[in-house]
């Protein structure tokens, strides 16, 4: 027997939900949604669960990840209950629930905690720089090592357990018994969705947004590869240098457009920005821009006299890798594609 929890929407509002209690259950949101189908009819079901406070139903559901936020439901909602933003808030809430450390929830709910985390990490980087007497080569050496370690540690200790937790909640706990073969059969789904966000193309007026996002993901992943494994900042290869310039430029140009849209609020998706959204786009923008500038300083022989440029880049990188990637909006990248993967597995088990 489910227990109604009217306080749940108050909790959800801390993650950004507008007013799910305004809903009068007409189902317009589900009907206008191009991604909703007979097997997965959302978002009204999620609105209903939220209003009733059935958090265990939400926790085990993958529906919030199936939404790619075109905003059509919010635009046409007769009660202005903003179901699109509710789905976004549920994704934030789910990220907090998947995260075993509990830090995601803290950072989502408290702007002060987020800012403190950013400041502390910046302080640590500067302190480390001072400790090394701002010796450029040493700092760059450790900076490069940091990238590799950060990736493996964050992935092994935070993201991997969280994804297993997500699987536990959304597949195992729901009692769906999928054969092992399903996990192999569905792997294609995981890869396709991780790198292309194919599902977002199903949204109505979404082609350009999808394209921007697509080249951003490609730019980001290849820049990651270029800096970490091809050692962009130390390489002599002309090809790799130019490649890095292009990739970082793609990142800051596209994210600049994302920031612009969030400021202008011209589309439903960019109307409601939580601090986590701002951190994500701004830091991604800074990542692209500072990486671009550092390499430019190297190529113009300015970096030796301007160690601060690299310190800034490293600060942005550390904040990104230690806050946004493990606990922030970056996790969408993983959870969305794993949601499609688990969803396929559940389909195969039926």
């Amino acid at each position, binding site marked *: 027997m489910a227990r109604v929890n009217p306080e749940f929407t108050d909790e959800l509002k801390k993650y950004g939900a507008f007013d799910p209690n305004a809903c009068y259950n*007409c*189902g317009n949101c589900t*009907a206008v949604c191009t991604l909703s189908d*007979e097997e997965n*009819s959302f978002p*009204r079901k999620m609105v209903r669960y939220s209003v009733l406070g059935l958090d265990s139903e939400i926790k085990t559901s993958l529906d919030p990840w199936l939404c790619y936020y075109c905003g059509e439901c919010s635009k046409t909602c*007769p009660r202005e209950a903003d179901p699109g933003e509710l789905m976004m808030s549920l994704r934030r809430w789910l990220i907090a629930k998947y995260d075993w450390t509990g830090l995601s929830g803290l950072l989502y709910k408290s702007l002060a905690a987020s800012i403190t985390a950013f400041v502390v990490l910046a302080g640590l980087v500067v302190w480390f720089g001072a400790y090394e007497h701002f010796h450029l080569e040493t700092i760059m050496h450790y900076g490069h090592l940091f990238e590799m370690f950060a990736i493996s540690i964050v992935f092994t200790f935070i993201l991997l357990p969280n994804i297993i937790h997500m699987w536990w909640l959304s597949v195992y706990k729901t009692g769906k018994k999928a054969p092992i073969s399903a996990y192999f059969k569905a792997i294609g789904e995981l890869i396709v969705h991780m790198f292309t966000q194919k599902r977002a193309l199903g949204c109505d007026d979404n082609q350009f947004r999808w394209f921007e996002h697509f080249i951003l993901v490609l730019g980001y992943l290849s820049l990651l590869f270029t800096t970490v494994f091809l050692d962009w900042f130390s390489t002599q290869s002309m090809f790799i240098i130019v490649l890095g310039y292009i990739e970082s430029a793609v990142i800051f140009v596209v994210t600049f457009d994302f920031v612009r849209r969030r400021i202008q609020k011209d589309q439903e998706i960019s109307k409601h920005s939580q601090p986590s959204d701002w951190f994500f786009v701004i830091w991604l923008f800074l990542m692209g821009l500072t990486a671009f500038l550092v390499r430019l300083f190297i190529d113009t022989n300015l970096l030796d006299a301007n160690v601060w440029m690299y310190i800034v880049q490293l600060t942005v990188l550390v904040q990104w890798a230690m806050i946004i990637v493990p606990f922030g909006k970056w996790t969408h990248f993983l959870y969305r594609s794993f949601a499609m993967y688990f969803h396929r597995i559940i389909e195969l088990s039926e």
Partner: protein
Amino acid sequence: MNMQEQMKTLDYDVLVVGGGIAGGESALNLANIGYKVLIVEKELSIGGKMILLSKVFPTLDCAACITTPKVSEIARHPNITVFTGAEPLKITKKGEHRFEAVVLQNPRYVDVEACTGCQLCEEACPVSVTDEFQFGLIGRKAAFIPFSIASPRVAAIDIENCILCGACERACPPDCIDFTQTEQKYLVKAKAVVTATGFKLFDPLKIPRYGYDKFDNVITSMQMERELAPTRPFNTVLRPGDGKMPDNIAYVLCTGSRDKSVGNPICSQVCCMYSIKQAQLLMGSLPMADITIYYLHIRAFGKGFNEFYAQAQDMGVEFIKGKVGKITEKDNGNLILRYEDIEAGIVKEAEHDMVVLSVGVLPNRGIDEVFDNETLKLDPFHFINQSDILASPAKTSIDGVFVAGTASGPMDIPDSILSGGAASAETTSYLRREESI
């Protein structure tokens, strides 16, 4: 000043703005106890929206059979004067029981007294345009009689579309067509004013995802009302796209009502019931047809309403809980409705060959701007505010100005007539106060 001198002055006890069923009821009551009443009606005929309806709920009486006797009584009443095609430009309260209104009489280009309504001008006129009194289902001429049971049933010239060929003039036996008519302004002195300006229908173009005007077989409930009326254009129920007799009709309730996204958050109070009524009438005229009503909540709150709803269910009308999200058209003109079946919690699609959008009731705005030196207050939804809604429902923010019918908010026909009655009673009481001083 100069203009005022030129204006002809008319003296009445009461000025009634709007000649629909509520304004007409008020005027009749007042005239019957001896007050001189002027009805100023913007349209070319009195009778308002009701005279164009098919039948009324929940009794299924013929709407025209109730309206036309009243309309004739109004037209022939010795104490009532009717101006059609006229509107008040300015109403000034000079003091208690002293109102002055500037009324504009638009030219009809027809001598109303002389016209016999023979319709020869209609035959002669070469210009065809869309007929607004049939809500765009068919056409009419530029020289035309508004509709067959109009009052006055005389011709008018649609000067916007007229090509001034003179064919009607030559065809007219009593020579009543007069292109020299001009706008006429009157200074009307009255002791009280009744505002019965009615309502407007929601324009479904504001919901593009329903495809009104884009898909031929998506019509409004008012268009269906015309298809079902005794004076209907096709003499049967047809879908406009190809003239096929529909056999699977869907109703989309709450089109433009209870919908903040289109700026109208309130319930229109009539759509549930008129849709149920039309469904029952359709089952009579198209016995083989399936009727489905997509609803949010059925509001059958009036006397006999719930029984009427149950009767429709018993007749086989299908009721599905769920707001239609969007409509798409197939090549054969049929329509696919996408909705969430709320009881099952599953998004579904259903095919129908005709869709009726049950459009809501909106305020007919602008009357407050006519009042010159005092403010006629509106409610948050732009209907006329009833300053004492429980004790004196016809009272407005101006003493001596009363409100009747849907000008104060959405309501059905019995309530409009009641409201018209209340307005006439309160007007009488206001006028008697002067007499007793």
